[in-house]
């Protein structure tokens, strides 16, 4: 299981990494591995606002469809358009080219309250 040590995590297996004032959000290596080959990602509209924990999209694999939950509240500033053609980027590089959305957080401090890489690794290992 790969862990991005720069990112913080939600129990629902999304990661969020700071990039300037914004956050980049994706799903963890553990999540992509559990889902299997991802065939489709339903992305939100740019400009949409979501509460912390709100479902902002769906990832569909050959065996399941799962909601994506936003780790912190905020406004979507960009979506990864490359996923429309190549959703397998999430399988190949979930912390890099497989990012899902960029977010302007409503409360910059909320990110700090997410799980640390170490704590998430423990939770994922028990999953």
């Amino acid at each position: 299981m790969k862990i991005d040590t720069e990112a913080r995590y939600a129990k629902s297996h999304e990661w969020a990494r700071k990039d300037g004032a914004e956050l980049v959000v994706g799903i963890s290596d553990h999540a992509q591995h559990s889902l299997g080959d991802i065939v489709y990602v339903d992305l939100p509209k740019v400009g949409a606002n979501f509460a912390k924990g709100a479902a902002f999209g769906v990832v569909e694999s050959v065996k399941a469809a799962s909601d994506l939950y936003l780790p912190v509240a905020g406004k979507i500033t960009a979506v990864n358009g490359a996923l429309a053609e190549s959703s397998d980027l999430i399988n190949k590089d979930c912390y890099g080219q497989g990012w899902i959305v960029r977010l302007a957080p409503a409360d910059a401090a909320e990110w700090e309250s997410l799980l640390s890489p170490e704590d998430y690794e423990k939770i994922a290992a028990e999953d």
Partner: protein
Amino acid sequence: MPYVPATDAQREDMLHRIGLVSIKELFEDFPAALRYPRLDLDEGLGELEVLRELEAMSSANVTADSCRWFLGAGAYDHFIPSAVPYLASRGEFVTAYTPYQPEVSQGTLQAIFEYQSMIADLTGMEAVNAGHYDGATALAEAVLMGLRGGADRRRVLLPDGLHPEYREVISSYLVAADVAVETYSGTPAAAAAASPDDLAVLVACYPDFFGRVADLSGAAEAVHAKGGILAVLADPVMLGLLKSPGEWGADVVAAEGQSLGNDLSYGGPYLGIMATTNALVRRLPGRIVGEARDAEGRRGFVLTLVAREQHIRREKAVSNICSNQGLATLRSCIHLALMGRSGMRRAAELCWHRAHWCARRIAALDGFSVAPGVFFKEFVVTTPIDAETLSERLCGRGIVCGLPLSRYWPERRRELLVCVTEKNSKADIEDLAEALREEAK
């Protein structure tokens, strides 16, 4: 798989666990007088006697085959080649649903795939599902597809010419939804342009309940400008002749598939046709069969995009109230294959020409007029006397002349919706015109 009900021993065990001895004890809350009523049934009859009694009852019905039939209004008397029921009733095909191990039943999946392909061709759309209950539920699902465009999509625009029963079905589907359902008149493009920005879906009828063929130019662009989708309710027979909804830019097409090889029957089964674009295919409910290659490169068929469906996503499924109409879909598949592109066009041309000739004949009668505008096979006639009275008189002469509009609009006493298909001969039409002339005196 055999269906094995509970055995006597299991029943006894269940009763024992809830502290009862007999099943009769479960009914003791009902008043004793109502508990086991005497039914006073006759002595049993022999099979032949039963058949004769049922045939006598059945012969009291007026059917499309037993008279000259000019009634449409949502269910249409089109010709069905004899091979359709023959092939569709073959044992290998007789199942109402896609099977539980679908990929084992390659023949069933291929039939659905061929159906989807031909409907895609007919409607001008990219993706088709395996069928719905009927045209009304298919249209209601098309409306739901529009509402899936986002939480800010809250407005549904329905045309004033929508079949009143379709409108009721849509209302039932939306009864608990917080959406604005409004009726528009005029062209779809103008209605969309006048809509607020929260438009989810605009429905256009092609043609509408009164037979009018709407001008769909500019409709898709105007609807998209308001963030909604264009849903077209189409007559699939008419699509053999006129520009397809896909060519008009429709995002989703719903249609009643009864006219494609399914019998007129009170209560069905009918067939809901649904087609959409690749862009919206994940909002499409129901089953979709796809073509695939197996490990050895051989062509095969599979259920595809199943993550939309209730056995994968449960409460998040695109629809939990849809079903595949396996047999009706199969009949439409065989019907379309037998008719072919040229047969569909020929049937549609016959409908058009005979309907227009019939309309001219009626319009020439004293006191009668035909509503203006473009129509295909159905049109509204204004009658010199009460249309229901006229209809009853013609029925006495073995002619079902159409639907008096007072059935749905009590104040419209002198209007008759007349339908002409390829099954109405020139002699039938002459008889209709002559009977209308005589009985309207």
